[in-house]
């Protein structure tokens, strides 16, 4: 489950991401609060009368306020801007205090108070500090009212009106916290829903993968079992036929092994458990040890295997030798597999500008239609099955090659061969020489 913000002793610390509502529907809220607090037009008039009297106390109010709040250990976390920040906040507080004596307490007033609340939320100042700060302000203003109107009966109406407007402000401030919390929860909810949808999708893909895998594992296994039974039942005409059947058993076993190996590879890659041993590699070594493996396969199909890199001096690359060979073998045997006649050619291009070696494998095979050139690198996507009679594979080869190449900081791709026939599959590997090393002149 994703983290739901930190919940401490002081309640939920709202995340900075909590969106601020643009325009709030405050009219009914303010009306209701005014009714509840008995904030009458008379009170508004009294507060307006107080304005010129109270103005002179506002700087002191700000001083009193900021002498206390920022030094609280819990609040000090958010007051990190030093003296400049406190000075700014003091003048903001005076503006707020002046607002109390506006005389007009409509939705614009409420909106203004909400904005202050949201600012507090954004700097993750706990609600309890806001409430206690309001207490400080209230005590201070009441004290000053006492100075202005020593006579109780004269003071009473004013102090009641002031109490009501401070209550309204406190309510608005608290409500802004509530709204921000709701907005935050809403965001979290959306994130959860999204995560849940992603999980469901991943699960569906996994199910599909599993169904595909079990089908693909069962197919050669069934051939092994049924042909073995054939021999055991004595259905073969002669030892020659028996051998032929056993060859099918053997090739099915090989296919099964290849499939299991590929599955182990892809799951290790996807689980991030495949460690690469990156070192400086001579591509020549890899080419020389890999090409003979495909040469047999190619010769049996009368396909020419051409190595165009033979006369080249190839730069060293940074890669994992085993995986480099695996990718190359994979792409080469694919090329041979899907080519009925013609050739399979290997070429290497040293790109000094982009600092990589690009290896291309060109074939005169069935090719891949343009719309499939990206998807063939996905798991279990095979070439056009119509052209695939008798071709068997795990359906994971290119998917593994792509992941391995990308893990080695390279790229892989597939294009049409010359004249739109066959295909060219290519991959790049970064050069081993670091940028700073001066390059030897090319020969």
């Amino acid at each position, binding site marked *: 489950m994703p983290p739901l913000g930190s919940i401490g002793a002081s309640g939920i610390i709202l995340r900075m991401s909590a969106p601020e509502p643009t325009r709030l529907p405050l009219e009914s809220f303010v009306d209701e609060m005014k009714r509840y607090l008995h904030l009458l037009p008379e009170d508004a008039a009294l507060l307006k009368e107080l304005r010129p009297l109270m103005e002179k106390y506002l700087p002191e109010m700000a001083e009193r306020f900021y002498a206390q709040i920022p030094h609280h250990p819990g609040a000090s976390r958010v007051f990190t801007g030093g003296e400049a920040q406190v000075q700014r906040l003091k003048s903001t507080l005076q503006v707020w205090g002046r607002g109390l004596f506006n005389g007009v307490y409509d939705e614009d007033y409420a909106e203004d108070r909400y904005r202050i609340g949201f600012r507090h939320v954004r700097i993750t100042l706990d609600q309890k500090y806001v409430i206690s700060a309001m207490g400080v302000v209230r005590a201070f203003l009441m004290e000053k009212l006492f100075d202005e109107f020593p006579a109780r009966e004269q003071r009473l109406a004013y102090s009641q009106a002031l109490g009501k407007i401070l209550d309204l402000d406190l309510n608005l401030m608290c409500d802004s916290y509530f709204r921000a919390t709701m907005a935050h929860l809403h965001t979290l909810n959306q994130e959860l829903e999204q995560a849940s949808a992603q999980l469901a999708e991943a699960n569906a893909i996994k199910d599909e993968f599993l169904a595909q895998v079990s089908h693909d594992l069962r197919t050669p296994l069934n051939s092994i079992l049924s*042909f073995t039974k054939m021999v055991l039942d004595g259905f073969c005409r002669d030892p020659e036929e028996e051998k032929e059947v056993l060859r099918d058993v053997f090739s099915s076993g090989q296919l099964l092994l290849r499939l299991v190996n590929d599955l182990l590879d892809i799951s290790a890659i996807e689980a991030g458990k495949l460690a690469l041993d990156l070192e400086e590699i001579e591509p020549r070594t890899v080419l020389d040890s890999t090409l003979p493996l495909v040469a047999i396969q190619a010769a049996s199909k009368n396909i020419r295997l051409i190595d165009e890199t033979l006369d080249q001096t190839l730069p060293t690359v940074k890669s994992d030798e085993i995986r480099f060979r695996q990718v190359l073998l994979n792409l080469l045997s694919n090329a041979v597999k899907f080519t009925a006649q013609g050739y399979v050619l290997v070429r290497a291009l040293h790109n000094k500008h982009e600092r990589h070696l690009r290896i291309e494998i060109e074939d005169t095979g069935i090719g891949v239609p343009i719309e499939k050139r990206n998807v063939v690198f996905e798991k279990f996507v095979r070439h056009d099955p119509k052209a695939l009679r008798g071709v068997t594979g795990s359906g994971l080869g290119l998917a593994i090659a792509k992941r391995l190449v990308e893990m080695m900081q390279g790229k892989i791709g597939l294009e049409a061969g010359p004249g739109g026939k066959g295909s060219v599959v290519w991959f790049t590997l970064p050069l081993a020489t670091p940028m700073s090393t001066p390059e030897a002149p090319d020969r």
Partner: protein
Amino acid sequence: MNRDTQPLRGNRILIVEDNALVAKFFRMALERAGGCECIISEDVPEILSHVAAGEVDLVLLDVSLTNSEWKGQAINGIELCRLLKERSTRRLPVLLATAHAMSGDRERFLESSGADGYLEKPVYDSSVLVEKVRSLINPS
């Protein structure tokens, strides 16, 4: 199994199966254990011409046919079965073979295809296959 009994002697069976090895197994099992003749094909026009000519006694048909097309569209065993029943000039039993080993599939496939019988792959025992085919060609 007694090889002299040859329960399918004189019959001709058409095997439609996209996996070459499975098709090969079906053919060997039916020929050797049943004594019949087999044709293997995935080519729909060819299949239809065999059927229309009344040359086959039973079609052993795979449900998933990755290599078969009809009128430029991919066709599966269920659709092909309906087509075969339509084109056949005589009684033509169709045995549907599939690897879908899920419950409910059997009835669903039988009903939607109009096939006469259902064979769940894998089949290892040739006598089971032969008996199934025989029972559909000569229902007693």
